């Protein structure tokens, strides 16, 4: 069964899905395969948020070049997210601070949140999936 077939048995329910991206883009497969789930969830017309925290903030770093490590560069996908109506992108303030980064280092526009603001946002969600 293809994903297109599955979308047609949608129940019309819209839930708040948060995807928590905690890992660096390369070194493990979590960021790449996690992004696939985000895109499919948006295709099901769900209310999608993405949070980047811990080393996950490196997923949004400008100027990623994977030639030297011979793996697929998927960083362009983050810039295409608004085409899938995924516009709620949040970054954890303490995670970028700890890594010496600012919003200017990131390839997409994000909302930077404090830990307590992040906790409130998380509490509002129906489903939280962590990669």
């Amino acid at each position: 069964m293809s994903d297109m077939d599955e979308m047609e048995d949608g129940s019309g329910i819209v839930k708040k899905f948060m995807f928590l991206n905690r890992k660096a883009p390369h070194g493990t497969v979590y960021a790449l395969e996690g992004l696939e789930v985000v895109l499919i969830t948006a295709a099901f017309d769900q209310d999608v948020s993405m949070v980047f925290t811990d080393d996950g903030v490196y997923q949004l770093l400008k100027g990623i070049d994977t030639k030297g490590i011979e793996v697929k560069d998927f960083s362009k996908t983050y810039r295409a997210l608004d085409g899938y109506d995924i516009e709620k992108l949040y970054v954890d303030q303490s995670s970028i601070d700890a890594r010496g980064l600012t919003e200017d280092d990131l390839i997409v526009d994000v909302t930077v949140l404090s830990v307590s603001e992040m906790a409130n946002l998380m509490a509002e969600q129906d489903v939280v999936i962590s990669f």
Partner: protein
Amino acid sequence: MQFGILVNEGPYSHQASDSAYLFARTALEKGYKVPRIFFYHDGVYNASRLATPPQDDRNVGARWSKLAADYGVDLVVCVAAAQRRGITDGVLGDNFRISGLGQLVEMGIQYDRLVTFGD
């Protein structure tokens, strides 16, 4: 109460698969519903019938198959993650099936809780 379960790690190398199994079995024994378990990332290796662990250890794949047989749990393996790792219909254990990520999203939409086991 209906639980959806997401297994993100392979068997033996990581605790996630054991924890997910024990959680699912206990929930079912206590009368909760676990209609579907979804295997993603290296979790797809849970579905291989080619694994032959030593006799004095648990057989993770066979254990999932039996849980599905006993309680009618739908064991779904992500097609994209499976293709990357050489898990095909030909190597699937009993009661596993390969399907799309939409099956995972559906669990989030339809069930009361989605519980993730992984790193």
